[in-house]
């Protein structure tokens, strides 16, 4: 049975329909954490975050406290918040932006105070029209409330936040591409080294780039202490996190769960959570952490929802997006659609990603729509190998950023686990599910 005892840290206002309003926010302890933080020494705030062992919620899972400590000392530095959530099946930041915008603003302000940064940017996916509206309103509310701007709550600390809408490119969720886009340039990821944001970031200055959900954790950590946060979860995976569950489940949605205490089986099948497969069909496979992650099969349902626990099985918890495929789902179609997404969203800079994704997509299209050949299976795997040599996980890469090595996961997983489905497509000259 699912363990649902942990407090709601970032989605505590989910029962209110007006959770996005300033009045609701103030009525539910809004800005108490910020007032508390401002009464503390900035380093003490950073220490609380460090002791929370909060891992970044963007996908890579790098400890937020350590990221902050790596910021190069310079007269000017920036805090950039990544809200460019654009991957298919990933929608947990979307929830926080639309439903808890003040919490995000407060979290950003706390983080900026800890980092002693006076300018922050929140980069929001351009398609989040309602989210943009609500977040901008929250920023305006905060200014009006004295929680933002100069001399916040009389503390002497000042911060400006700019909400910057993206222009419809998934790659701008990659932190260095996001920085390029913020600077008004094409969203081409930068090469690391030397362009680690902590050293050479926005406008060449040291920059911390954190995910929306990471920021949303700040008020609770400040109010309750890093130790309380670290007491939740297990091992490296502390606290709670949001999981975006979708696919062939009865109750798709965003769930905040304590880390590691539940398994994939719990979230997919527990009546209080996913509620099982639609029509009570059999589960065929699931993607554990976003569409760039290698797939899992039903044998792996009992793996706990923890970073290391999933990594040990050669995949990743990533952004916490879980996609469920049932016995009627076409794995070829699923892999094709994912590949098509990456092909369209490749920035076009690096040859293996640009050309590889397009080529793979065209082969997968044939496979699904007729014209697939048996020899295409080896070709697909070899092309995947040329993008991510060895097809291991975590992947090796031939490209500047990790979009490239994300491409092969779905095809590799699908062929490895469901080769017969591909053969059936070849023999049927198209999709047998159609």
């Amino acid at each position, binding site marked *: 049975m699912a363990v649902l005892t942990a407090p709601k840290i970032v989605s505590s206002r989910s029962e209110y329909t007006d959770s996005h309003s300033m009045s609701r926010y103030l009525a539910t302890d809004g800005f108490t954490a910020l007032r508390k933080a401002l009464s503390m020494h900035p380093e003490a705030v950073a220490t609380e975050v460090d002791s929370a062992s909060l891992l970044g919620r963007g996908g890579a899972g790098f400890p937020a406290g350590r990221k902050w400590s790596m910021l190069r000392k310079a007269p000017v530095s920036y805090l950039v918040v990544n809200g460019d959530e654009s991957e298919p099946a990933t929608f947990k930041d979307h929830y926080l932006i639309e439903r808890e915008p003040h919490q995000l603003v407060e979290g950003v302000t706390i983080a900026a105070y800890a980092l002693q940064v006076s300018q922050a940017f929140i980069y929001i996916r351009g398609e989040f029209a309602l989210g943009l509206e609500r977040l901008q309103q929250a920023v305006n509310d905060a200014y009006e409330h004295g929680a933002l701007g100069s001399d916040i709550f009389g503390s002497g600390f000042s911060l400006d936040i700019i909400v910057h809408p993206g222009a419809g490119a998934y790659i701008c969720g990659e932190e260095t591409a996001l920085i390029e886009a913020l600077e008004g340039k094409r969203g081409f990821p930068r090469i690391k080294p030397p362009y680690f944001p902590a050293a050479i970031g926005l406008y060449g200055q040291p920059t911390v780039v954190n995910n929306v959900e990471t920021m949303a954790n700040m008020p609770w950590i400040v109010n309750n202490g890093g130790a309380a946060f670290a007491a939740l979860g297990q091992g490296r995976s502390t606290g709670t996190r949001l999981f975006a569950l979708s696919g062939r489940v009865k109750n798709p949605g965003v769930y905040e769960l304590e880390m590691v205490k539940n398994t994939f089986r719990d979230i997919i099948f527990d009546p209080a959570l996913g509620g099982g497969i639609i029509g009570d069909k059999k589960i065929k496979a699931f993607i554990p952490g976003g569409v760039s992650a290698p797939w899992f099969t039903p044998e792996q349902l009992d793996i706990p929802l923890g970073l290391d626990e999933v990594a040990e099985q050669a995949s990743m918890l990533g952004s916490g997006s879980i996609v469920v495929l049932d016995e009627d789902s076409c794995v070829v179609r699923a892999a094709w659609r994912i590949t098509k997404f990456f092909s*369209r969203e490749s920035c076009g800079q690096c040859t293996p990603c*640009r050309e590889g994704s*397009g080529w793979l997509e065209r082969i997968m299209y044939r496979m699904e729509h007729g014209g697939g050949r048996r020899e295409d299976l080896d070709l697909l795997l070899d092309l995947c*190998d*040329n993008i991510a040599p060895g097809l291991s996980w975590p992947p*090796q890469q031939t490209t500047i950023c990790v979009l490239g090595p994300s491409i092969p996961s779905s095809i590799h997983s699908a062929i490895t686990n469901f080769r017969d489905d591909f053969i059936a497509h070849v023999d049927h000259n198209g999709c047998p599910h159609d």
Partner: protein
Amino acid sequence: MTDALETRTTVTLTVNGREVTATKGEMLIAAADRVGTYIPRFCYHPRMEPVGVCRMCLVEVDGPRGATLQPACYIQVGEGMVVNTESEKVKKAQDGVLEFLLANHPLDCPVCDKGGECPLQDQTLAHGSGETRFIEEKRHFPKPIEIGELVLLDRERCIQCSRCTRFASEVAGDAQIDFAGRGDNIEVAPSPTEPFDSVFSGNTVQICPVGALTAKPYRFTARPWDLEQVESTCTTCAVGCRVAVQSSSNRLTRVLGMDSEAVNHGWLCDKGRFTIDSVVGIDEAPLTDSARRIMEPMIRRNGELEAATWGEALREAARIISSATTPSAVGAIGGAALTNEGAFAWQRFFRGVVGTDSIDAQYGDGLDPVLVAALPRATINEAAEACTVVLLTGDLREELPVLFLRLREGLVKGTTNAVEMSASGSALSALSRVKLPIRPGEAHLVAQAIATDDAPLATLASHPHGGLFTSADLVEARRLIGDDGSGVVFVVGRPNVAESAAPIEAAIRIFAERFPQAKFLPTLRRGNVNGALDMGLTPNLAPGQQFAPTAGRSTLEQLRAATTGEQSVIVSLGGDILENVVDTPLASAALKAASLIAVTGHGGPSLAFADVVFPTTVMHERLGTVTNIEGRVSLLAPKVTPPGSTWPDVAIASELAEEFGQNLGLSDPEETANVIEATTGYPCGSAMRSAMEGVVVGRIDAQTERRLLDPMAFPGIRSADLVGIAPRAGSIASSDASVAGVASRPALSNVAGDINPVIPMPDTYSLRLVVDRTIYDNGAAVRGTEALRALAPTSVLRVNPHDLTRIGVTSGGAVRLTSARGSEVIAVVAEAAVPRGCVALRHGTLVTTNASDSANVGNWIVDSEQVVVEVRMESL
């Protein structure tokens, strides 16, 4: 230089099991190149910043997480680094990238201009699988599309290496092309609003590693394997870019930039690259059009120029010269179009045979050659690496384009600061740390203010339209120049040819005296004008920059003497006098009055006055040496057989001397080069023998080694006969003698003229005229080249917006412009870079209305007797 090399830190790394030494900070791909380990590449270009996008140069580098694939073009060498460029993993990754690049690349090599010299084709032949696994439909785009006047783009062939877009934004600063779209639909696209009108657009074609970019003039004209090549020097301007000149049998097909460390880094301007058409000329053009190639001798009979034999023409010329009452009634104008050898032969003819010193390679718009010779000369590299450059010259992008590129690099990187003293702004203005705009007649005042104190500011501020900069600007300029000018290069020339040389020359002398450690790079801009002056085609200097025993007339003095009858014969050497002298009424009056013997390769308006015409060989047809702005003497190599009965200048001068019963002792260019070197120490003979990077006069320390040619970076240039014989400074036998004349060379104290000319301020209603230059100037190179002719701008008066508002005319309207010489209706455009109280015109731009005597507006208006030209502007 040696010291700097020694203090650099070196690192030791292992490449394929071999220990190699490299410079700290060097990119791995360059270090590997030097030790002979070639790593395949497409996007990497040694003259641009790396981007690491094509991923072809992936190699295995050992690191904390084991050996990982890293782009060799983007990873700096490190101490103890272990690199494998040949492992199975590397090979698979590189083969994979190559296959990906070929996936969408069309199989149209047989009809592609790049076929046969294509980096993608070459690497596919070397490493490709031979069979494609790509059975899908390839990517399609309409093709080709025009992205600029001279460049076509085939997007299907493009491999997105970003060389062209990086060249445009990073090197040229003309970012009108960039990527559009994404994924495998990404494409290079021109700006939707701004055309790619860069004067450097041809470089993008040259460095394209596939056939995506093609140059309109070359497209479909030849196959690379049919091309023969010589290395030569471009003489379109005086930068002296090293070029590969290519022909198919006897037809010139293409000029490519050679990667010369000292001069052009592989780049060329479009004028230098595309003017080969003008060598052939346009047959149907009239004799008075510089597009016409002159291929046979002519004599004026019954008022018309008619074809003649060489014997007839020589006899007629000798008769005209002999008919002059005294030797000093004969003079010669021009010489920038000659080789050093041709110039030497002509000066020997005029001084030795005729007995006149009235010879001048400049057209009254240059600098005093005594001053030029007296200045401590900087090389282009020294200017590009200076801590500060002071720009007291015209817009270098228009006048000496590749010098602009070389200087721009340091300004963009911030390694060089610029102080700009400009009469009408320039393409370097935006990059200059300090801008000190100068109105005509003010250069020496501004120089004084920099060199001494703020006192001249009061005078400058008394201009009816006020001062143009503040005391704070002067403080910053002085700080950048420092106490004695060490590490500073003054780039000096004539920013305004409607103004006499006096204010500028005074300014240069003020700087040279005040900042003794500074060096100077004069921007005398025409072809081989620097060589012609060094060869004694000046009224007061003999070959080798030594004083001549007696002094003759300068060009303007000769023209005036012709109008008064003191001089009865003018010999025009090379360029057209009417096209080059800014004071056109004076020039045409002189040509009407005197006899004209024209020695030229091209037609021109002056031929209407010519009595005898001698057809000469031109660039790409003749052997010789030329000297660039920094004093670098380099080889000019013939590629095609001269047409018709054209002769080289050495032969014409020698044969004409024979008519006077004298022997110049110069039978051909090689002998002439050796005679020059033997008699003056000037290194023509050495330069002709050693080729490559040439020899800088008197500057053995300025020798540079030729970089190894990377055919991936400079496709199309044949390497076999060019690589590996870098000139060794020590091997040039006579270079120590190249300063033989140093004892008698001019010093600053020899320079004549007032160091503080007094020029009255204009009244409130007068405006001062600036005539500056444009690259596409309707000269022989532009008019003779189909592709460039359309690029010549029409004449327009550029006016400060403040002054336009004052007379109530809007930009795009027209005004009546009046000078003491006459008046004209002309279109106006607002331009903030033109100082208030001034108006600016481009020299050599066509005017739409019929200006008196000349097709060149601005010319009729300029009175060369005046120090500055005052005009008035009225709304219509």
